[in-house]
């Protein structure tokens, strides 16, 4: 039997895979997406149960090593102070993300020119801006136009409400004269494109049964499927194969019952993010590519960037009603975003307000801080922190370092026998200085807002959400893996559209930029269809 060859094979149905699938659909090509996870049904989300927090320690944990669903692959992250977080399923990690949706800044694309570190991107903010705007509309981004930390931009939906917590924090920023603004959030604050509005339930990190959170399974995928894209779930790709001409000719994957299958394709698009994409390329060895596909530069897997987080947590005397509202969205500050040499580090960070911890998570945060003893004093201590916490997270720009990398573990495998990724990562001195600075300034602003006590976690252990840089873009094949529009230098019919192509990390959550890049690459592919491989 002759196998059908699809025009475009996308690997991964997360933020990037969904966006590129939707954009390419109007070419009427046969587009197939293989996703190792499945759809999450709305009625499966823990937020519909009173004991929903327990799922954060189980089947909806952010770490695949804790979650251990059949579709997850283990990650050996014992060599990193920051653990990897991800979700495998339609929508990818956006299913569990906080939906904080900032764009990069113009300066983020020019770090070598401006600050003498890392590399400039081969594209700039202006090139991506139309795709940021398109993505904001597709996702339904809430916010408030006029933020002086950004060039002018439209925001489709009204901002997430601040609540008592947000207003308290804003008063602290105003007291110090520092920047703050309502966050850009991938949250439908009003009904949008058939999605119900946010009801402030606060369970975003275990998924949104309301459908208000702009995860890719409720934004791009329904439209892409209606446009004819084929999506096969529970299909785990093992490797990309190449023909005698050195071009990719398809993939080998395991279907939903574990049977090995082959799928031929004219074009392969990788959308597995900074760990999964590097893992797959490194596992795709052949005589033409003995060190992994598209890895003649030796850079596949290197320059892993994670965004070290510092959590500075104010404890207040009065209840803050902080359980109400999208947990990671409300207020941000970019007072310290741009480089100031006087601070002792280059680049900068964003402060993001989190809502108060829910009971279980609050107890787990307070435990290692020595704030929640066992025994007779336990309940009084818990009463002193419950609904009285205001966490302020600093998301710090992580500079690329070739020593920080993804490799294949020699022993650990997933349930299909595919080598698991192994993470080698250390904090740079620049990151450590930035973290320390952010804690000192966060303490000032929280005290200005009225905090009576401060707890700190730095770096936040479970904060490896942002996986970037392991197949970076550039114009020089010796110094990058893909070109300025996502095509692999070494294999001209393989494209990468996820966080792995980031040249630098910025000091903001990456999903908005991941999706803008995916849309930009898809648009470029469509414009070059006649000579895509030249």
């Amino acid at each position, binding site marked *: 039997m002759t196998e059908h060859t699809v025009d475009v094979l996308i690997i991964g149905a997360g933020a990037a895979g969904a966006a590129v699938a939707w954009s390419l659909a109007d070419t009427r090509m046969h587009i197939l997406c293989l996703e190792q996870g499945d759809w999450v049904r709305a009625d499966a*989300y823990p937020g*519909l*149960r*009173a*004991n*929903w*927090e*327990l799922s954060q*320690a189980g089947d909806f944990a952010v770490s695949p090593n804790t979650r251990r669903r059949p579709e997850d692959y283990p990650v050996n992250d014992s060599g990193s102070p920051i653990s990897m977080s991800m979700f495998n399923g339609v929508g990818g990690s956006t299913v569990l993300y906080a939906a904080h949706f900032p764009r990069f*800044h*113009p*300066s983020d*694309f020019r770090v070598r*020119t*401006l600050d003498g570190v890392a590399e400039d991107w081969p594209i*700039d903010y202006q090139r991506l801006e139309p795709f940021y705007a398109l993505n904001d509309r597709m996702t339904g981004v809430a916010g*408030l136009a*006029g933020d*002086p930390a*950004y060039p002018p931009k439209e925001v489709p939906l009204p*901002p997430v*409400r*601040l*609540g008592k917590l*947000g207003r308290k924090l*804003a008063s602290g*920023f*105003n007291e110090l*004269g520092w*920047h*703050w*603004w309502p966050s850009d959030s991938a949250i439908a604050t009003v009904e949008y494109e058939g999605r119900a509005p*946010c*009801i*402030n*339930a606060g*369970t975003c990190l275990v998924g949104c*049964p*309301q459908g208000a959170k702009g995860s890719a399974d409720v934004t791009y995928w329904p439209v892409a499927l209606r446009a004819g894209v084929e999506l096969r779930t529970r299909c785990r790709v093992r490797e990309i194969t190449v023909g005698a001409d050195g071009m990719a000719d398809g993939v080998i994957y395991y279907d939903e019952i574990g049977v090995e299958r082959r799928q031929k394709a004219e074009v392969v698009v990788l959308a597995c993010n900074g760990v999964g994409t590097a893992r797959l390329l490194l596992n795709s060895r052949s005589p033409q590519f003995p060190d992994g596909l598209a890895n003649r530069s030796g850079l596949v897997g290197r320059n892993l960037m994670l965004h070290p987080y510092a959590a500075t947590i104010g404890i207040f005397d009065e209840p803050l009603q902080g*359980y*109400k509202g999208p947990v990671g969205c409300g207020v941000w500050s*970019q*007072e310290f*975003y*741009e480089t100031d040499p006087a601070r002792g580090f280059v680049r900068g960070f964003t402060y993001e307000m989190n809502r108060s911890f829910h*009971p*279980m998570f*609050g*107890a*787990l945060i307070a*435990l*290692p801080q020595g704030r*929640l003893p*066992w*025994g*007779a004093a*336990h*309940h009084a201590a818990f009463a002193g922190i*419950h*609904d009285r916490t205001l966490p302020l997270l600093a998301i710090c720009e992580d500079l690329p370092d070739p020593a920080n990398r993804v490799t294949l573990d020699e022993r650990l495998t997933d349930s299909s026998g595919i080598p698991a990724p192994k993470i080698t990562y250390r904090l740079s001195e620049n990151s450590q200085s930035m973290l320390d600075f952010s804690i000192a300034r966060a303490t000032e602003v929280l005290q200005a807002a009225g905090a009576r006590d401060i707890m700190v976690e730095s770096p936040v252990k479970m904060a490896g959400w942002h996986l970037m840089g392991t197949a970076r873009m550039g114009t020089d094949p010796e110094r990058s893996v893909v070109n300025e529009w996502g095509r692999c230098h070494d294999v001209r019919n393989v494209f990468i559209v996820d966080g792995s192509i980031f040249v630098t990390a910025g000091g903001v959550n990456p999903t908005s930029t991941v999706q803008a890049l995916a849309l930009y690459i898809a648009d470029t592919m469509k414009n070059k269809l006649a000579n895509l491989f030249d």
Partner: protein
Amino acid sequence: MTLNTQLLAMVLDELIPSRPDGLLPGAGSLGVGAVVEHAAGGTPELGQLLTQGLAALDDIARRSGAEGFGALSPTARVAALRDIEQAEPMFLSTLLMLAYVGYYSAEPVVAALKGNARPPHPLGYDLESDDLSLLDAVRARGKLYREC
């Protein structure tokens, strides 16, 4: 490897005792032991750590002349737990973490803290609208980003 369920419940009641106002039972009485046992059953290393830790705690009690942890006075139980906390810190910190997970996600505890037992969805919560004149001072500062 099976945990000593009865001993585990007694220990949990010492770690998180009943609330002084009587509105909430201790962690053992609430059934948090099931959460600990579930976790222990899923990871052999964790199961071994907890089993051995509980056995060591019982040994401490026996060395004091009692027939086990359950036979100790309330004061002596606390002392035994302090001893095991020093001798086996990994055991006690792990057990505490699991106890907090189980206790603070349990429906009766959440209901007592929130004043009702309903899940967050589908009703959600109301948030009042904001007075964004709070931003006037920020607007007055002008642009912060770098042109490039």
